[in-house]
């Protein structure tokens, strides 16, 4: 009783790095926005277009054959054991074969490392590349987890631009200007989050050649692989693996609509073996030993999941996404003070520019999101957290009626808050 509890006497103190690092994660921001919602007051159900998780919508349900594979894995009781940190061989092999379908250089089992979702893959790759003095190139705008993770490491982050007027292509001159001999890698997200863009073959080849010139590796975030519905096909960066080494991040989460299962991978396309020689592969293995794993029961089901999911499921999802992207894009055209410069052609997101000066009392993108949540129970994600202030990221992975409702609410909001002359 009556013990003094001054913090400074205890042998643990804040880790300031950690505090700064995770200040702007998606969950943190969405939480703040969600807390602003006043459902009783608006009388409206919440529409959450802040994250890429359509699993709650019946139309987006993962096929029964996938759930059955997992149930069989659980009931077999063969997969209750610890998995190796890199993952069990049959699952690694199944992922290697799956990815190899689209690659000229086939991946082997040893090229694939299993992770607890793609966020974990990001955690691992940034951890193993980090060393004091090194820098890494990130896109602007970016998927915020990269920023948070990099801040919690010695890596210096440098941002290259994606150019909105050129379909969000990479500013390659900018990349060359930013890189120096301490640059370790460039991160590319294709199909793009947050922009919803898809790179062309030619553009990707140029990026690979630039990476080769600069002597850096390419981290290809392909979480939205194959989720394309515009004119451009999906091309994995690994296709250019003989030009520059490519580390591909992927998962089941988006294509199979099971983000809660936490199953992802790191796949290495490195025919010359640079990553092996520089010890990166060993570091990956060590890091995987101490961090999360995807449950063995899920790993056990993966071969069956990959083999038995029909193409029609995937094309149906892409069809839904295309329809949704159309609804969003056309709908945004009718809304004053917002503009979507590039119609989304992949992933589940669109970047939308706000005309802040045209608003009466909305000062920036965060303010826009907070007020929109409060007044309309509609959640979208502030672009500042993705690197573009006064833009917002809107997910269109929702059922048509929900999206149309969202458009109506946003329009009402913008009309209400527009400056009246």
């Amino acid at each position, binding site marked *: 009783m009556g013990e003094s509890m001054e913090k400074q006497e205890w042998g*643990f103190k804040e880790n300031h790095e950690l505090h700064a690092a*995770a200040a702007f994660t998606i969950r943190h921001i969405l939480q703040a926005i969600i807390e602003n919602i006043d459902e009783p007051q608006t009388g409206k159900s919440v529409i959450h277009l802040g994250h890429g998780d359509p699993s709650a919508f019946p139309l987006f349900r993962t096929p029964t054959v996938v759930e059955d594979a997992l149930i069989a894995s659980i009931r077999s009781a063969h997969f209750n054991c610890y998995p190796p940190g890199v993952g069990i061989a049959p699952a690694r092999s199944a992922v290697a074969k799956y990815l190899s379908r689209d690659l000229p250089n086939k991946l082997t089992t040893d090229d694939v490392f299993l992770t607890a979702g793609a966020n974990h893959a990001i955690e691992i790759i940034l951890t193993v590349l980090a060393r004091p003095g090194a820098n890494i190139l990130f896109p602007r705008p970016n998927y915020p987890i990269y920023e948070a993770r990099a801040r919690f490491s010695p890596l210096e982050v440098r941002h290259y631009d994606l150019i909105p007027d050129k379909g969000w292509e990479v500013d390659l001159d900018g990349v060359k200007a930013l890189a120096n001999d301490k640059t370790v890698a460039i991160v590319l997200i294709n199909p793009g989050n947050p922009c919803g863009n898809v790179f062309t073959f030619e553009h990707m080849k140029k990026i690979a050649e630039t990476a080769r010139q600069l002597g850096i590796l390419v981290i290809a975030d392909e979480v939205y692989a194959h989720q394309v519905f515009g004119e451009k096909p999906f091309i994995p960066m690994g296709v250019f693996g003989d030009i520059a080494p490519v580390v591909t991040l992927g998962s089941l989460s988006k294509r199979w609509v099971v983000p809660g299962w936490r199953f992802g991978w790191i796949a290495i396309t490195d025919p010359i073996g640079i990553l092996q020689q520089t010890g990166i592969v060993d570091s990956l293995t060590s890091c995987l030993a101490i961090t999360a794993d995807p*449950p063995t029961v899920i790993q056990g089901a993966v071969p069956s999941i990959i083999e038995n999911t029909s193409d029609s499921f995937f094309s149906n999802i892409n069809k839904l996404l295309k329809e949704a992207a159309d609804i969003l894009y056309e709908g945004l055209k009718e809304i004053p003070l917002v503009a979507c410069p590039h119609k989304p052609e992949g992933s589940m997101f669109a970047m939308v520019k706000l005309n802040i000066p045209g608003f009466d009392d909305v000062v920036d993108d965060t303010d826009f999101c907070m007020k929109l949540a409060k007044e309309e129970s509609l959640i979208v994600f502030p672009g500042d957290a993705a690197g573009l202030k006064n833009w917002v990221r809107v997910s269109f992975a929702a059922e048509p009626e929900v999206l149309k409702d969202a458009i109506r609410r946003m329009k009402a909001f913008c009309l209400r808050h527009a400056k009246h002359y």
Partner: protein
Amino acid sequence: METPTNMTIKGILGILMASIDEDKKRRLISLGMGDPTAFSCFTTTDIAQDAVVQTLQSRKFNGYSPTVGLPQTRKAISEYLSTSLPYKLSSDDVYITAGCTQAIEVAISILARPNANILVPKPGFPIYELCAAFRNVEIRHFNLLPDRGWEVDLDSVDALIDHNTVGIVIINPGNPCGNVYSYQHLKKIAETAKRHKILIVADEVYGHLAFGDNPFVPMGVFGSMVPVLTLGSLSKRWIVPGWRLGWFVTSDPKGIFKNTKNIERLKKYFDICGGPATFIQAAVPCILENTEEVFFTRTLGILKQSSDLCFKKIKEIPCLTCPQKPQGAMSVMVKLNVSLLKDISDDVEFCFKLAKEESVILLPGLTVGLKNWVRITFAAEPSSLEEALDRVKSFSERHSHQQKVHIELS
């Protein structure tokens, strides 16, 4: 034979497995890892399996969970742990992790700061060393005393602590030693930590797996005296290490550690990590509530039986000495007397040759911090355990200086 110092248990075991002579007709028996699922006598309860199938089939848990874990899961675990504590934990005290391994990683990361050091037991669990290396936290080893039931050498602890020490790790029930600390000893540890103003990381992954004289007492019982970070999981008690469902819990009723800043940091750290599957989290309340006592009793019965058998068989092997009969957890530390062996110079060589010649895997003690000791996991089918130890016996006879067969005097 060189063993890399940053080797994990799985890593060493992998190398040992690779040296197994596949031509030998004998089946492989591994007593190397704390994973009893390889033996059919150790299976999880149907309750657990059904619960997970149900949450999966509900289709309500295919989406992201909050990064700190589903609220119902946190609540269920807080209630489960609170039954053994003199105070109630709240759901906010509980963070869901992908197994206890991730809980360890979180603990080290959250305590890390420039120049920090953390005390870990020797022998211990190498994941602590690996995590600390990644986070630039200095590791200081305190001794466990084999002649005192592997109790903590509190004098060595006193000598190691300085103003940069952030915590002390206590593994109870013990891995690798199989000890279960008494209430009195845990209290002394808590008093030492309090005196030095460091918190305790209580690794209770083997919680409740105590089958000897001492009951399992959670370190959180002393949470009012000193803040305790309790780490645990479903893996051992429910025999499902592959499900990757663990927890990191602040057993800190006075709120010394869990001030606003630390909680914020913790939540934000979870935002950037990989995590446990949502549907498995969702099954936890049902698993905790409905698992029958008879399942736990049965597991303890098998563990007691096999630990007794292990202890008895070790006595028959002259070059191996077991200073403390296991009281809990799943493994035991056994001292190797290399002077009795003619062509084996240390524990690593012993284990490699044993693997090659007898297709039996034991873990070299070097991996867990004690050279010339060996860790034997007794959580195995009794018949497999017996056969494995018979092979170890004939192996050691073959490699002993004296060719005479040991005759047991009764």
